[in-house]
């Protein structure tokens, strides 16, 4: 039996067991909804626009936050990878901060920025920027010296060296960092929305809890997983594979 059939079968069985358990009515529906309840929740949630709004809000936040992370992380990583002093100072700081789960920035962000959109963006950025920075620095440090020598002998300096050689040579590493950064950003956003901010998918979860609406909670969880997976599978994995192949690295 090949891979995807096995997977399909597994999930079908899982659904059947779930439905079966729900039908036994061992627990009330608000504790243990059936798959059908969840699907209904999804349909009605999209029907009245509340789920779409939540998704759009979360997506907007992640796009801005993630975009900022790339805008800061990649240039910072370039500096880290090329300049020894920066590596020994800021690099050490970044490495240290990485030990801090990004949601721990929320209290600080709330005190600095108040109950605002900026606070949540800050948490998202702190979640993603460090891994983007470190991966970029890593890729830059591992640029084959031969590429740099070849470029220099053709007259390349500064701009052409960075944009034409060092950056593209580091691209596979940067992509790995971007992928990791994306998943961190997504987690941070959900944690942040769950803890405080209005609207968004995290807020749907909180609302589901407050309304004792387990179907909504599960539906939201599924949407969160789906978005995370879709972006990973449709955006990052193909990009990464393409780059690794083109760059002549082993296709992992």
């Amino acid at each position, binding site marked *: 039996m090949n891979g995807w059939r096995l997977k399909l079968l597994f999930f079908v069985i899982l659904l059947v067991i779930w439905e079966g358990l729900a039908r036994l009515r061992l627990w009330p529906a608000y504790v243990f909804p059936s798959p059908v309840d969840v699907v209904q929740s999804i349909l009605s949630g999209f029907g009245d626009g509340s789920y779409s709004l939540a998704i759009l809000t979360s997506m907007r936040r992640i796009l801005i936050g993630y975009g900022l992370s790339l805008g800061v992380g990649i240039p910072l990583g370039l500096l880290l990878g090329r300049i020894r002093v920066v590596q020994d100072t800021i690099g050490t700081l970044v490495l240290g901060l990485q030990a801090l789960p990004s949601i721990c920035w929320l209290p600080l962000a709330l005190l600095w920025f108040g109950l605002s959109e900026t606070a949540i963006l800050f948490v998202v950025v702190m979640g993603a920027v460090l891994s983007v920075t470190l991966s970029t620095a890593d890729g830059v440090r591992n640029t084959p010296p031969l590429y740099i020598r070849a470029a220099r*002998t053709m007259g*390349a300096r500064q701009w052409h060296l960075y944009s034409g050689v060092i950056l593209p040579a580091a691209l596979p590493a940067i992509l790995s960092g971007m992928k990791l950064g994306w998943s961190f950003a997504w987690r941070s956003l959900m944690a942040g929305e769950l803890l405080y901010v209005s609207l968004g998918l995290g807020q749907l979860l909180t609302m589901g809890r407050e309304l004792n609406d387990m179907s909504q909670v599960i539906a939201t969880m599924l949407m969160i997983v789906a978005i995370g997976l879709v972006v990973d599978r449709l955006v990052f994995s193909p990009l990464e594979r393409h780059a690794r192949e083109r760059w002549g690295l082993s296709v992992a």
Partner: protein
Amino acid sequence: MKLELRSISKTFHTRRGNTYALQEITAEVASGEFVCLLGPSGCGKSTLLNIVAGLERPDAGVVLIDDQPVTGPGRDRVMIFQEAALFPWLNVRDNVTFGLNVAGLPRSEQLAIADRYLERVGLRGFEKAYVYEISGGMKQRVALARALALDPLVLLMDEPFAALDAQTRDLLHTELQDIWLHSGKTIIFVTHNVREALVLGDRVLLMSARPGRIKREFCCQLARPRQIEDHALVDVAREVLADLREEVMAAKQEVGSERLAA
């Protein structure tokens, strides 16, 4: 154009100690000359070429091009390495235009030049191929086209064919002679293979074991195009080989004594 090396010396300082790589190298290369640098492994050939390329600085001495000292890399002296050093994120044509782009040429001109030189090295039809799609011999052809496209005063080649199989190497020897004859480029070609040096060079500079000095100079006036198995060439090679062998032995002894000292 006149290229002059004036008493160039170079020592590398590492944690394990100092390596006296080059000692007072003095030589001249005339415009359009094909000079081969021949010497045992580790005698400083690459170092000397890097210094001419401006990728490395000598401790003493100076490289002059038309009486102007070399202070850094520049596209008047393009280097070709043993590994083709092509950029895998660019296709063949964009690899060739890389230097032209750095030089700020208009795109249409870059493409015209690239196609001309790709045709010259027999890679027409491979413009869109990526590095992982072409063979080692083709990679070196692209590297050659990429260097020629910049129309440098001097082409610096550091064992560019050493990693290729014998047939491909012979083919490229013939093509390189042809390109040299037609372009009139000045070429400095590093090798540790006597026959390769004699096939290609007008003049062969034999370097001594470390610290590298120019030990002897051979002129090679055999008719072109030369082949590696030409009888006349094999005869000359025998003479040069005797000399080279001495240096190889000397190099081995040095490595041996270093090991004893360590």
